[in-house]
């Protein structure tokens, strides 16, 4: 089954590249009673890409996001992460397969230090029982956590209580926590919501840095962030893929403009 042939609608896009997709959905459909939130959405995100999912209110972005992170079970269709079929798996299983996500409401442990927050997340992925046997393994864990903090620029604040961080730093810590689980796919849910222009820019720079070895799916409303970060953009409208393409292609797409300005 050629993954490149299952994509619907839109301009010719990234699957022309040779990389096999890391994330693939096939006719993903979600119905709530009489409401169809997603209707046959098929996307393929190649390894290493930053994919932005945009669309006007009610387009199905959150629903799509919740499906690929295991929070929501689709009514029909399939989701693949690499070779694994992750359709309908609960969030903890999906996380273990290598999908990490950030939350709109900050999901950090306020009473723990910055380093501890990251260490706890890293611990869930590695070691487990072996911690009892190898006390050196704990040292590895701390080193890994410090490395992640250095990546996101929070290392100087490692001993700080998470509750005392500024809002922007807390959002950054969330991203660090997601990274600590060593994911293959990082899902970011409106990471710049509520941020000032300066904080937004800092977040954009951060995501660009960490995305070098990662595949990222990001849902965002801020168009500058989207245009600046995304390699490919998927536009959803009323639960269907309206268009897909590079930022330039999407900006030039008259139908997309119409949908955004006329809703």
């Amino acid at each position, binding site marked *: 089954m050629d993954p490149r042939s299952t994509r619907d609608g839109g301009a010719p896009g990234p699957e022309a590249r040779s990389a096999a997709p890391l994330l693939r959905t096939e006719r993903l459909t979600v119905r709530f009673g009489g409401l169809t939130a997603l209707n046959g959405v098929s996307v393929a995100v190649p390894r290493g890409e930053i994919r932005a999912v*945009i669309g006007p209110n009610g387009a199905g972005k959150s629903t799509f996001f919740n499906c690929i992170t295991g929070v929501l079970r689709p009514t029909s269709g399939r989701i693949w992460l690499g070779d694994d079929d992750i359709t309908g798996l609960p969030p903890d299983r999906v996380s273990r397969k290598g999908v990490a996500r950030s939350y709109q409401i*900050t999901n950090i442990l306020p009473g723990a230090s910055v380093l501890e927050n990251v260490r706890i997340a890293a611990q869930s992925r590695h070691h487990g029982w072996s911690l009892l046997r190898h006390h050196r393994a704990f040292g590895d864990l701390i080193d890994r956590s410090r490395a992640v903090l250095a990546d996101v620029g929070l290392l100087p604040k490692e001993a700080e209580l998470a509750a005392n961080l*500024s*809002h922007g730093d*807390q959002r950054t810590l969330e991203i660090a926590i997601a990274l600590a689980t060593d994911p293959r796919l990082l899902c970011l849910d409106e990471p710049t919501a*509520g941020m000032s222009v300066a904080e937004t820019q800092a977040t954009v720079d951060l995501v660009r840095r960490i995305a070098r070895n990662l595949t990222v799916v990001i849902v965002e*409303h801020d168009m500058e962030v989207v245009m600046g970060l995304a390699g490919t953009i998927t536009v959803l409208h009323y639960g269907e893929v309206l268009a897909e393409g590079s930022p330039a292609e*999407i900006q030039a797409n008259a139908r997309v*403009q119409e949908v955004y*300005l006329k809703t």
Partner: protein
Amino acid sequence: MLRLDDIHTYYGKSHILHGVSLEVGPGEVVGLLGRNGVGKSTTLKTIAGLVRPAQGRVSFEGREVAGLPPYRLAHLGIAWVPEDRRVFKLLTVAENLRTGLDRAGMTEARRNELLDKVYRFFPFLAERRRQAGGTLSGGEQQMLAIARAMMLEPRIILLDEPTEGLMPRMVSQIREIIERLHEEKVAILLVEQNVPLTLEATSRCYIMEKGVVQHEAPSRDLKANHDIVRQYLGV
């Protein structure tokens, strides 16, 4: 009549409004445009007293009103029609309307006068007056929410995305209602994502992005020059 000066509002630690300033004159119909998440609803909620600004001033008809509880603002003449309508589902249509009619200084006669007026504005509400609010369709609930706000005899109505989720036929009905409210000299601050409707119905518009007002212009200018709208609201 209504004026916001450098308003900063937070939800917990999240800094949503980064210094919003705007004003609405008596009887004006002003639009507030912007993409999702820029803080339009939060601006309306700040004006209506539902959330207290951390910094900045809100003045209404010459007095400082930031920090007053919502029911005081309602009595002063600020009516709020929320995005999700928030019709009282277990109250009948008539009871929903009644919630705005027991203010100080209301007489039985005045109450009936206002009810008659709103039933003429919205005849279908008269038919359904004994029906529970929760049994109305989405569009009907939107009309009820606006009618209910009118019961406060407000000087300004804060309308939060009234056309969201409505069919085109109802959208034009909303347009008419805004027009008629304008005839009654009620000021309106209209938050919307439907750009054509907003440009038609308003005399001028503010455009918000990232928690601040980035642009202000007369609506006919925005209609003539699509680029600005496209820049802030398009893709």
